[in-house]
């Protein structure tokens, strides 16, 4: 009897504890999340439907004019299209450079591997603004790159303030975000599978293509999502290396807010970018899940 009476209160305590504990424990994070993300996002959404007048500013009445402008004006189409292809190209280059880089890293011996992983991650420790100025010094008309080009007898190339400069700098900034997920999925790889493929007469290239690559594909795909998302919303790099003329979505939003003072239009552009990004990422994720769920779990 005494054992039963001792045991009885325990489940009750743990029941009430378990039903409340998850909510209580996640409350601080939720409050922070709500205050810093959900509320501003909702306010932005509200703002994007408000009327703007150049003389009087934001008015408290509903309009769809900003979205209509976005959908009809070629100026915005061009900017959205440029943002899309620059992000896609950056992602592609990051896959082509980052995936082999991660593979080489994973095959290195112990001291070198951690040293070089640090080298790959080191750019993250330097401010994006500093790195953008670094690139502008390198790519400018009198920069190191053009000095080399001239030394080879070729005419000076205009690199700075072009799409090329933006892509180069974005790849540099985004590469760690590709290397890390690919590296993680390489770590999960059974080292025996490579030997197994070789023992079955596969060449090294075939082994990479048919055995290693499909297994790190989830890493490549999630790295692509991160790189694409961050590139599409990048602000500092296009702002500093694209110049005043070459605009991307994030820089246009900045202009609308701070130069035109047309906050509702800026909000509409920002939300459209968010929506486009969401649609692209979710459909990408769907495709990814459908083709790899069965084999890779």
């Amino acid at each position: 009897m005494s054992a039963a009476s001792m045991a009885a209160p325990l489940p009750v305590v743990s029941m009430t504890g378990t039903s409340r504990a998850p909510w209580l424990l996640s409350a601080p994070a939720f409050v922070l999340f709500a205050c810093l993300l959900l509320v501003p996002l909702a306010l932005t959404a509200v703002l994007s439907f408000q009327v703007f007048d150049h003389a009087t500013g934001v008015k408290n009445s509903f309009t769809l004019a900003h979205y209509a402008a976005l959908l009809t004006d070629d100026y915005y189409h061009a900017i959205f299209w440029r943002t899309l292809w620059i992000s896609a190209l950056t992602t592609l280059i990051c896959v082509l450079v980052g995936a082999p880089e991660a593979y080489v890293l994973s095959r290195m011996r112990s001291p070198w591997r951690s040293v070089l992983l640090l080298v790959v991650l080191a750019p993250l420790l330097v401010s994006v603004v500093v790195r953008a100025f670094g690139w502008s010094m390198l790519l400018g008309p009198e920069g190191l790159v053009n000095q080399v080009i001239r030394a080879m007898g070729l005419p000076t190339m205009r690199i700075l303030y072009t799409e090329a400069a933006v892509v180069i700098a974005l790849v540099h900034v985004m590469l760690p975000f590709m290397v890390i997920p690919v590296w993680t999925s390489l770590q999960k790889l059974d080292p025996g599978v490579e030997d197994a493929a070789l023992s079955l007469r596969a060449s090294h290239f075939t082994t990479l293509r048919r055995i290693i690559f499909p297994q790190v594909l989830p890493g490549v795909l999630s790295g692509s999502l991160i790189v694409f998302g961050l590139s599409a919303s990048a602000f500092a790099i296009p702002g500093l290396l694209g110049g005043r003329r070459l605009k991307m979505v994030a820089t246009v939003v900045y202009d609308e807010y701070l130069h035109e003072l047309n906050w509702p239009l800026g909000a509409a552009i920002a939300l459209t970018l968010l929506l486009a990004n969401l649609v692209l990422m979710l459909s990408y994720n769907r495709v990814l899940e459908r083709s790899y769920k069965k084999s890779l779990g």
Partner: protein
Amino acid sequence: MSFLTLTNVNKAYGATRAVIDMNLSVEKGEFVSLLGPSGCGKTTTLQMIAGFADVTAGRITLDGRNITHAKPNTRGLGIVFQSYALFPHMSVHDNVSFGLEMRRVPKSERAERVKAALALVHLQAHAARYPRELSGGQRQRVALARALVIEPPVLLLDEPLSNLDAKLREEMQFELRQIQRKVGTTTVMVTHDQTEAMSISDRVVVMEAGRVTQIDQPHRLYEHPQTRFISSFVGKANLLEGRVTATGAWATVSLGTVALEVEAPGAAAGDAVVLSLRPEKIRLVAQGQGRLAGTVCERFFLGSQWLYQVATAAGELVVVCPNDGAAPAEEGQGIGLDWPAGQVRLLPGALHLPHEPQRALEAVA
């Protein structure tokens, strides 16, 4: 000339020598096991045969062809890895088919051979599944089918059963042997499990600290271990340290207060020796009879057997008796121990033998 030969093969990692002067010849169709504790160089040896580890010195030939420095993807050997190393993104069928694809086998023949290989390991019904949907034993079979479907000249098994639970391991042992008999593939298996090595191999190669210490048929290895290490590593053994006091056709070995007569050609008076006596060779007899008197300290019931620990003047001995239904000896009971005189093996006293490994090899080659 044997089918697969290793001649004075050495492997060094910097200053540490993993494999020292390994000599081994495997006949066509033979099942040979490399047995030893971890770190004895058995896996390194297998890796050198497979081509995944460089040979520091020596020669490996396969069917008369020198493959010492051949690339692993030109050797065409079938390998079953300890982790199975199945391709997780491919179905069972595609896993097995991969080796045939690499050999550019026509598609129709490929399907046929994959089917036959899966039938061999009883997995026809699972061809469309993915490795992660299979149990450990089934993955093991897929790995085996993948290695056998290419009809390799030699099948290499790296601790193939070590990831399976005890019951399944026993089943797979016999199945592995059956399959190997059926297809007749020359097989080299690495294992640290002596029962596994003995139950399925034609010959067992015992390795210790990078060296081969004995190559023999399983029952000869068990009955005539050449070193103290082997006698305790292969099966259980009572090891008694003593000194030879008299020689002749039979030597007298003094073990403290008692002396035993042992068949020991070549022993000299004054030699420090170790006697090895298998627990199941000893019989319990009535007190006052037999060769040695003792008292039962503890007894354990193992189902098919009784295991006794018996205190004697020569030290504590382990005795295993079959459970024949008769009443077992009680703890504390005084008894006599008897065994056939020829069953006591005399081993040199030192743990590591000063003898030449080459001599042992010539005896079997």
